[in-house]
């Protein structure tokens, strides 16, 4: 599985397809941090929200780089449909970590954060890492659902991406009747901005993990009949 992950990551980078989502991430972050300084928690919470559609789009691009027949060859070579599918998700997660690293560095590069005298940079970055990782799993799962292997057409793939990203914001707003239907990105942004008990962080993490698991299971199930 590691070998297939390496092969796909290599294809993603060498075809140049990794550039577009990176530029999109930098553009979004420069707009986000162009307006002045904020607390690290607040900045990173909104950054993770902005990174969610970019990470999902990056996942779709990554999974779509491989020709359909090569994906089938990989399935035969690795000897298991499940391992081939999981290798795709793993590759997208690894690529996502690269984008997250850029997102974590961005507010310091743009000088858009102010750290309290008693606060530390390390703690701020740790909060940022946590909230971005919270977005990574759901973004990879959504991007996989939008990939060509599942949606078959570019239009349907775009529709899945846009609908998922918009719903994540709209249904995550304060007072939403069904916040559990979408990944807890808005709730995480509110939490990192205003703080709260540790139990809330654990609840948000569990929510994100459950959403990721459910969506990844749907993807894996669909891939059984769409190799």
């Amino acid at each position, binding site marked *: 599985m590691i070998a297939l992950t390496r092969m796909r990551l290599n294809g993603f980078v060498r*075809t140049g397809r990794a550039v577009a989502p990176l530029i999109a991430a930098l553009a979004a972050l420069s707009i986000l941090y162009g307006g002045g300084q904020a607390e690290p928690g607040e900045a990173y919470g909104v950054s993770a929200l902005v990174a969610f559609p970019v990470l999902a789009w990056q996942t779709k691009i990554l999974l779509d780089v491989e*020709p359909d027949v090569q994906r089938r*060859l990989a399935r*035969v*070579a*690795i*000897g298991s449909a499940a391992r081939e599918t999981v290798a795709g998700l793993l590759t997208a997660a690894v690529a996502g970590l690269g984008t997250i690293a850029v997102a974590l560095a961005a507010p310091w590069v743009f000088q858009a954060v102010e750290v309290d005298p008693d606060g530390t940079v390390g703690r701020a970055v740790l909060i940022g890492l946590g909230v971005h990782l919270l977005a990574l799993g759901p973004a990879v799962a959504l991007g996989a659902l939008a990939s060509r292997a599942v949606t078959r057409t570019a239009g349907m793939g775009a529709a899945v991406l846009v609908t998922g990203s918009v719903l994540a914001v709209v249904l995550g707003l304060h007072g939403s009747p069904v916040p559990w239907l979408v990944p807890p990105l808005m709730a995480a942004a509110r939490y990192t901005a205003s703080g709260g008990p540790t139990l809330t962080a654990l609840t948000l993490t569990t929510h994100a993990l459950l959403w990721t698991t459910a969506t990844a299971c749907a993807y894996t199930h669909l891939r059984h009949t769409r190799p």
Partner: protein
Amino acid sequence: MHLDDVWLRYRRGGPWVLRNVTARVEPGGIVVVLGRNGAGKSTLLQLVAGVLRPAKGRVRDRPAVVGWVPERFPADQPSTVDGYLRAMAAVRGLGPAATGRAVDEWVQRFGLGEFRDVKLPELSKGTAQKVGLAQALLVPPDLLILDEPWEGLDAATRDLVPGIVLEVAARGGSVLVSDHRGETVRLPGAATWTVADGTLSTAAADTGPRCVVEVAVSAADLAGAVARLREQGHHVLRVREEVGS
């Protein structure tokens, strides 16, 4: 390996591409899959390879190591020939030393030496097809599936394919080959599976003596007559056009 009452369609509610397919491949057996264009030969081969899953029925006892050569090798990839074969060997679980040996062997046998550092999209169709063959053989397959393997190959490599098929079979591996060029006449003792109208008819390997019958057919019905003869399990050795009666 067994196919037990296998049915397949590409989408729920869509037409059945394969219906009620029951067949068996013995270790060391060679099967030639025949049928007209669009009959479902490639679908059947992908089902056997484990790429497609049946909607009904099941495929049992598929060997662990499967080599599949698709009808068209996907050359639209950024790797070089060497890089691609090494990556596929690693995906198949070979270590660095075994990868080097396997890649060297098949690069040499298919005459790919001068193309090792050439990127896949720059290869001719025939050379890309050789890479497709090589990737399926990096680990000795227990089941080798060749979908029209002769397409685009030069004469030297076309002559290599029957030898490779017989090597795999001699080691106890099973081989399925689809063919519409009549090249499989060079696979003696092969059983025949014929796909027509979504169903499969099988004929055991014909090991008895054979006769050659020369038959004249209407030029307008040439393709149909050849297809019908193949569907009936006959080997069409040669087609020649004659002027006059």
